[in-house]
């Protein structure tokens, strides 16, 4: 995209993008931390998540501020307008992802106090991997306004949902089989649910990317119309 005649305006938009990237980075670290903790059954790696969440929240407020400022001062139109609008929405989703990771981190503390599971949970591992890559790719696509990749990320949400469903039925069986670990399973379901939500948020971010790129709103319309 060409530069604006007003260099200051460009600088402001760049600054905005940088903040979003930073926020995305923080959220990614939160997600990585809880995934690590969950797969090693250890609460320690997830310890910084709460502090990170504070930073994420602060960033969300600053980005909101910056967007308000740009709208008031620059009256952005067309792609600039769409960029600002997408960012305003995307940061809400990122913040929610942050919240979900905080919730998982809390859950992790109770989980680790409980006895470890007997069987591995491959669906959970799959979910964690998928969600992490979805978020990373969504953030990447956001930075590059890469609508191809955004579309592709959206399609990947399905797999996460399926893994979630599979995990839930497996855990239900496991609960019946060993009721003494009911609390652990229950907590894991909550974690899985959070991961599933994180996938949804990543998908939302990708929808904004498509709106940003094409000026077309693809939310709630299924993938058919996005293509």
């Amino acid at each position: 995209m060409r530069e604006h005649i007003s260099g200051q305006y460009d600088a402001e938009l760049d600054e905005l993008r940088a903040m979003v990237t930073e926020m995305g980075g923080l959220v990614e670290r939160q997600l990585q931390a809880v995934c690590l903790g969950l797969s090693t059954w250890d609460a320690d790696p997830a310890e910084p998540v709460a502090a990170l969440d504070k930073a994420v929240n602060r960033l969300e407020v600053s980005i909101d501020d910056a967007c308000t400022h740009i709208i008031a001062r620059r009256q952005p139109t067309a792609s600039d307008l769409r960029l600002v609008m997408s960012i305003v929405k995307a940061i809400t989703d990122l913040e929610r992802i942050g919240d979900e990771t905080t919730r998982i981190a809390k859950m992790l503390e109770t989980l680790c106090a409980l006895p470890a599971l007997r069987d591995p949970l491959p669906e959970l591992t799959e979910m964690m991997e998928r969600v992490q890559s979805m978020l990373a790719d969504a953030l990447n696509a956001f930075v590059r306004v890469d609508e191809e990749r955004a579309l592709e990320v959206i399609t990947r949400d399905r797999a996460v949902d399926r893994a979630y469903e599979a995990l839930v039925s497996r855990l239900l069986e496991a609960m019946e089989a060993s009721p003494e670990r009911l609390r652990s399973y229950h907590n894991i379901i909550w974690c899985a649910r959070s991961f599933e939500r994180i996938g949804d948020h990543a998908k939302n971010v990708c929808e904004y990317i498509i709106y940003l790129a094409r000026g077309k709103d693809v939310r709630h319309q299924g993938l058919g119309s996005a293509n």
Partner: protein
Amino acid sequence: MTDTPTLTFDPADTCLKVEQLSVSYDGKAALREVSLTVPRHRVTAFIGPSGCGKSTLLRSFNRMNDLIRGVEVTGQIHLFGEDILAPKVDVTVLRRRIGMVFQQPNPFPMSVFDNVAYGLRLQGLSDQRALEREVEWALRSAALWDEVKDRLEASALTLSGGQQQRLVIARAIAIRPEVLLLDEPASALDPISTLKIEELIGQLAEAYSIIVVTHNMQQAARVSDYTAFLYLGELVEFSATDDLFTRPQARQTEDYITGRYG
């Protein structure tokens, strides 16, 4: 250009239909094969960088370009289906149907009242009461009445720049044209007067077809239903205003309205 993103309207909703219009001054092209349809009873905005031909296009509609030596016009313009570039057209009648407000306020060196009454008197209205009524209506519509009602006999040249701008708008609407061409009607106005004029434009659009040229994109976005973007004498894009300002289809439009034009 055949791939210009453009709109067409039902013949019944078409006010002006421009086809392949080219205008050149002394052989220098100012407009190149512009084709567009201006809808009836709507506000259409023309935007584009300085010198892109907005005024030229506007002046083609009421044949003001005829007055300039060395001007050459080809193509067609139809006003409600009537060819207005035909040589047999009576331009004085045409100009009563298509009123124009010029880029620079140009009040006559007469009293405020006489300025507004000028066009009415030309049409043979001489009854003082009727004149007063019409003048008051026009001045009120142009949001000027309260400021000048006590100095109707004062010279129009004693008005401020913004007042003069509203005066020439009042003068143009006094003769109740069918189409109103406004070339930067608010360039010298304060924000409140600007909003009043924009409000007026909105009201007038119920009965008139209005074309506004403006350099203020927010203004175009606020007042118009449709917007045409002209660049270097060519029509780049003509879309509904909502679309043009959120998702322009042409790269040049995008660059221009986001301030990337260079």
